[in-house]
């Protein structure tokens, strides 16, 4: 569960479900989607043998797709299907030329490459030049200076024009960190441009590492620097880290959810603390039965990228592997809450619709505890003595079923040998257990009824792997009588 600022918005503006403000039958957030969805599906069916076969086999006429709600009968697709289909899942035209190559991280061993064409890159450039220009307020304020970490975790980033003066930085070696600090202190004298950097933007892992580093070196970013906004991409932002970043830098923090395969993602909302998806991507949440959640509910995220923002690699009803809760009337647009990777969720053993714990539940609880051992992601900065500011917690869960009872054991790796600090560890066990039960009323009810037992087990350093995106958090032990 994300935490964020309480709503300070006038209630008259909080009317996402109010179609009176819409044009025709579409709420504002669906106008662009409804304009482009028909062409998106028709083009994929015309140019991609994979999508054409998919829709023929499902008995679907692509020409019948004219509205985002028409998407529901279309089959969903997964990364492995697209990877195996290769060029057959892409839309090649005689003059198609590739300008950008992007890819997943491949934590499961199978990297998925996405290719962007010159035509779509040009369209994105033209579109955002106009869109961002049209949204600007001509109040004479200077262009802000943004320090942006550019790390090619996912290939070549798409260039998007905006009113911002970009200075790149990195934190993977001492000299580059010193360079970043120098830029933060620098007073510029450039026409139409702010005098000092006011925005930090980029990969969350790197910005966490940078924040930890400046604190270890004794800087006071809130007073020494002038950062007003931190814009994060990649990985789940825990409530602890949001607070650290806000208080350390004295800045507003926004974060984005996105996947490298799909252009377009979601930005965190300061009013509802959820995410709102970009108007040029169609989000759906699909429950365990494969049905789209309307109104309110939790399920797997399905994304459709829209033509002409995406041209060479169509992604139509693509299952991202992430779990989201959606509530359509919670803010000015449907509110989505990230619940972690679907692989990290724990469901009832007999009913896959009964969600007991999400990956975010476990990560957020463990993230708050310095005793929990984390993966070390970087170890080469001379002035950084602490090296667990960025890595994920080392934990694994096992479910054992015996007769009508089940036992859930969450093993957590500590930074020390637990038996040497028995009293402290007893308190830690209580704290983790209570926090998990507080987050899941469904699990708490089962524990209270005596049908489920929740155990927290501590293991010595070096016992467990870090929680990876591509591997399950929970496994089932063989059932015993």
């Amino acid at each position: 569960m994300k935490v964020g600022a309480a709503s300070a918005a006038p209630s008259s503006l909080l009317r996402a479900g109010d179609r009176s403000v819409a044009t025709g039958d579409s709420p504002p957030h669906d106008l662009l989607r409804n304009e482009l969805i028909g062409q998106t599906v028709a083009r994929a069916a015309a140019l991609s043998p994979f999508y054409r076969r998919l829709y023929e086999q499902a008995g679907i006429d692509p020409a019948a797709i004219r509205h985002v709600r028409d998407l529901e009968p279309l089959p969903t697709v997964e990364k492995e299907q697209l990877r195996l289909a290769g060029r057959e899942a892409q839309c090649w035209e005689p003059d198609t030329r590739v300008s950008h190559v992007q890819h997943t991280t491949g934590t499961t061993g199978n990297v998925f490459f996405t290719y962007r064409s010159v035509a779509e890159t040009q369209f994105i450039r033209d579109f955002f030049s106009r869109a961002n220009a049209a949204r600007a307020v001509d109040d004479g304020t200077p262009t802000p200076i943004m320090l942006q970490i550019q790390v090619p975790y996912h290939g070549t980033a798409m260039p998007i024009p905006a009113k911002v003066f970009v200075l790149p930085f990195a934190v993977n070696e001492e000299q580059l960190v010193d360079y970043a600090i120098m830029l933060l202190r620098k007073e510029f004298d450039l026409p139409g441009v702010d005098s000092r950097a006011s925005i930090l933007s980029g990969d969350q892992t790197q910005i966490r590492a940078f924040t930890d580093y400046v604190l270890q070196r004794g800087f006071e970013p809130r007073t020494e620097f002038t950062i007003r906004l931190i814009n994060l991409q990649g990985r789940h932002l825990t409530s602890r880290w949001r607070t650290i970043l806000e208080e350390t830098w004295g800045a507003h923090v926004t974060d984005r959810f996105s996947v490298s395969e799909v252009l377009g993602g979601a930005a965190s909302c300061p009013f509802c603390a959820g995410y709102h998806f970009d108007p040029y991507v169609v989000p759906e949440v699909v429950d365990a039965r494969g049905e789209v959640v309307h109104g309110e509910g939790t399920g797997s995220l399905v994304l459709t990228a829209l033509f002409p923002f995406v041209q060479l690699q169509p992604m139509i009803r693509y299952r991202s592997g992430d779990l989201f809760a959606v509530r359509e009337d919670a803010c000015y647009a449907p509110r989505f809450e990230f619940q972690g990777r679907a692989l990290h969720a724990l469901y009832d053993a007999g009913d896959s619709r009964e969600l007991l714990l999400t990956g975010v539940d476990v990560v957020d609880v463990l993230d708050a505890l310095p005793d929990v051992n984390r993966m070390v992601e970087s170890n080469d900065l001379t002035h950084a003595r602490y090296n667990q500011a960025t890595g994920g917690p080392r934990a694994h869960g096992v479910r054992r079923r015996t007769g009508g009872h089940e036992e859930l054991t969450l093993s957590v790796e500590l930074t020390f040998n637990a038996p040497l600090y028995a009293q402290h560890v007893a308190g830690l066990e209580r704290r983790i257990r209570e926090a998990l039960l507080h987050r899941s009323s469904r699990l708490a009810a089962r524990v209270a009824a005596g049908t489920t037992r929740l155990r927290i087990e501590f293991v010595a350093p070096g016992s467990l792997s870090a929680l990876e995106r591509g591997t399950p958090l929970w496994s089932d032990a063989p059932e015993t009588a």
Partner: protein
Amino acid sequence: MSAQNSSYRQASDGLYSEENLNKLVGLYNKAKSAGDQLAVASATNAIHTYLEGEALAAESFELQEVAAATGGSK
């Protein structure tokens, strides 16, 4: 190229016209305007109003390219 592909392509050429680009931008900005209004009404730090990841405010001149949008999932 098949006849089906060819006819599709002719139909899609209009997407890149000045008129169509402006239409799409208009629809995009209608979608974004509700959030912008909220930010202004609640006196959120003005910079945030126009900064939601890759959607950044701009004037019609002085546009820089921001490397963004490849993301990487949570």
